[in-house]
């Protein structure tokens, strides 16, 4: 029994030390520079919380942090997201920081640390960077602590054999004999790509560009679970985002894999359009930014990198995005159909503001009575395989269906 009680205490002590070392020591430094968008009362509460934290009054600090979190959460949900002032997101992140560290103050079990990591993830997902990206550092420490506590890897003996592999159903691979395919190029020069594809806005598949990225060999379900398993991510639940039953929810990567990938899922879950690589820098090491992005106007920091991770069968309805896109396929294959922006009328976009960049037509099962012009609209299609990059020009309509368990990484640039 003595050995059991020794380990957690030492572990917890090391954790507390590591976290303390990260945080500014005085309440003056444990503060945010905020503009006038944040009311005095909130600033007052932030100061109070910092003071309680520095004074070691943990449970009172937790209470104050909860109020900070709840109030700023309400502000984050007021008005369109793009209009939410960054200062509110920073306040939210600050609340997450204090709450997460307070949760770890007690010699706690892994539940407290997992809860603290979840709080960090909420701060990363909804908040904005504060105190030199401190939440990323705190999350890394918490994650390392959780991983060191685990027994090494889920061995085969622990999982029922039927759960081990992702399910694979023989899927409808589309008959593409009557479809025009996206042209393929092997490592084109920057100038060639710019002149023949970027400027005229033409899709192309680039081969030999990403196929040596570390992710191609390294990423597997086991690897992803090891690196990111306990991290909380947003998951889209429902066949497609145009459905009434569609919703977004949060869960850990482990929960996502077990609920929506390994087992017989009740509904489709898709870890879609999430900046996973900002949240988990370790994964960022496994990918690169395609060189061709330098042909754009924006700076490298402005490039949005999204992860798209899900089971066989996820569908993104036909839609268009306001930026250039390099879609890199890492695991599994995706069937993709593309339509030029010139064909927009034949694609019957939704009339609501919310969905005006999405077509009403179900690409692989179109209702031609309702949408007659769709049948005649010219298109390109392809099956994108691991190691390949699809260039989707700005505003080019695209429809995507995963033919296998799939992981893609998209780069949105201008």
């Amino acid at each position, binding site marked *: 029994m003595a050995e059991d009680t020794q380990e957690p205490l030492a572990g917890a002590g090391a954790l507390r030390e590591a976290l303390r070392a990260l945080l500014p020591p005085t309440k003056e430094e444990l503060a945010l520079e905020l503009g006038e968008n944040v*009311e*005095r*009362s*909130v600033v*007052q*509460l932030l100061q109070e919380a910092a003071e309680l934290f520095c004074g070691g009054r943990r449970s009172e600090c937790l*209470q*104050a942090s*909860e*109020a900070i979190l*709840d*109030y700023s959460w*309400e502000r984050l*949900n*007021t*008005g*369109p997201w793009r209009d939410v002032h960054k200062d509110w997101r920073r306040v939210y992140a600050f609340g997450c920081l204090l709450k997460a560290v307070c949760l770890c103050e007690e010699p706690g079990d892994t539940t407290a640390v997992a809860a603290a990591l979840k709080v960090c993830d909420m701060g990363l997902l909804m908040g904005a960077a504060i105190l030199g990206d401190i939440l990323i550092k705190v999350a890394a420490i918490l994650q390392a602590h959780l991983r060191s506590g685990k027994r090494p890897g889920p061995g085969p003996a622990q999982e029922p054999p039927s759960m081990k592999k992702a399910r694979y159903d023989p899927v409808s691979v589309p008959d593409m004999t009557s479809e025009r395919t996206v042209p393929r190029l092997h490592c084109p020069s920057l100038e060639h790509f710019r002149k023949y594809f970027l400027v005229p806005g033409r899709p192309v598949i680039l081969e030999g560009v990403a196929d040596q990225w570390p992710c191609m060999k390294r990423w597997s379900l086991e690897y992803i679970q090891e690196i990111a398993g306990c991290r909380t991510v947003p998951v889209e639940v429902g066949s497609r985002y145009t459905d009434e039953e569609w*919703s977004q929810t949060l869960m850990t990567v482990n929960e996502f894999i077990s609920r929506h990938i390994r087992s017989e899922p009740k509904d489709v879950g898709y870890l879609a359009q999430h900046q996973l690589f900002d949240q988990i820098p370790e994964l960022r090491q496994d990918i690169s930014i395609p060189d061709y992005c330098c042909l754009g106007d924006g700076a490298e920091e402005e490039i949005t990198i999204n992860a798209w991770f899900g089971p066989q069968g996820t569908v993104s309805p036909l839609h268009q995005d306001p930026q250039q896109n390099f879609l890199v396929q890492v695991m599994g294959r995706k069937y993709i159909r593309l339509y030029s922006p010139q064909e927009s009328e034949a694609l019957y976009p939704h009339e*609501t*503001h*919310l969905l005006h960049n999405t077509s009403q037509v179900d690409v692989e099962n179109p209702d031609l009575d309702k949408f007659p012009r769709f049948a005649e609209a010219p298109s390109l299609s392809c099956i994108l395989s691991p190691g390949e990059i699809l260039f989707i020009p700005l505003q080019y309509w695209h429809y995507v269906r995963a033919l296998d368990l799939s992981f893609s990484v998209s780069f949105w640039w201008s």
Partner: protein
Amino acid sequence: MAEERRGSWFGFGFCGFGQAPGSGRGRQVLSPEPLQTPGSGADVRRVSASWSYTALVTRGGQVRLSGAARGAAGGCRDAWASEAQLVVLRAGPGRGAGPELQAWAPASAMRGEPLWARALGPEAEAEGAARGEPPAGALSLLPLLPGARAYVSPRPPFCRALAPELRARRLELGAEHALLLDEAGQVFSWGQGRHGQLGHGSLEAEPEPRLLEALQGLPVAEVAAGGWHSVCVSETGDIYIWGWNESGQLALPSRSLAEDTKTIPREASGLNEDGFEVRRTAKGEDGAPAPFIAIQPFPALLDLPLGADVVKASCGSRHTAVVTGTGELYTWGWGKYGQLGHKDTTSLDRPCRVEYFVDKQLQVRAVSCGPWNTYVYAVEKEGS
């Protein structure tokens, strides 16, 4: 003739800034407590609560602040509290002059200069009187201004005009929407709609007041706006409710309440023999699991237990409170700060009676919610 007994005000919920009903004893009060006010608590005729402070308006025209904003000032007919500014309606500077609208920084304790002020002119009163509005001081209307040609907003522009043909009787503001009740008992809504709070059946925003067609023909007596939800009470005592249900504030099955095993309702499913918590799932009438509802984009009729009829309603950020004709108070929605008054911090997605008032033989007459708290006016029952 029944005598109108003087009642008193009670409060419960968040008081993290020391506002009533707390007095530094803690950040929240989980069960109704009488408001400590100097002089008689019966003196208070209106309560307007913002997140960090509460304003009490007395019959004598005093505004008393508690919480992050403190102080008191006289000569006020009405007050409306928000984080950005405290808006008060004061009697005009001289006889015959109309009332003046003043906005104060909450921390100023109404000393020094207001952030801005606007004379409303005597015609505002006259117009109000012509339309049958009670004389000055009797009824609070803020954020609707006397004369109902304009209303106050916590964000610039602070004074916003209303089309005269709207004939507004009552106006309520949510976090990103507005509700208007007109003289004919019709309801209009405008603002952001992404949480269904406008009630027009879609998630689209509406830039201008739009009539709620779903309620057309139903004479509405009262409207109330929460952060992202809307309530109206018909003249026959029915409640209609719409908008965001993320904490059960619509009294519809809420997924987050069912899945969060920490928030177990009092009459809980509890533990089964194996000691595992039983997941609470919503049940439809036939016993099959009912779907969870996150957003209700058009009005839904809500039945209270025992078919009670409703006379008053008020909403906080994410909770709802109603008063019945028989003087009972029902609350539901977000309960984390005790704002439901059920002695705990459980959130509920169905209406529950606040037993305190029943136990104390008090008849509830009015309710006014701050974002995270609730204020109740109650009188002693006859013959008690």
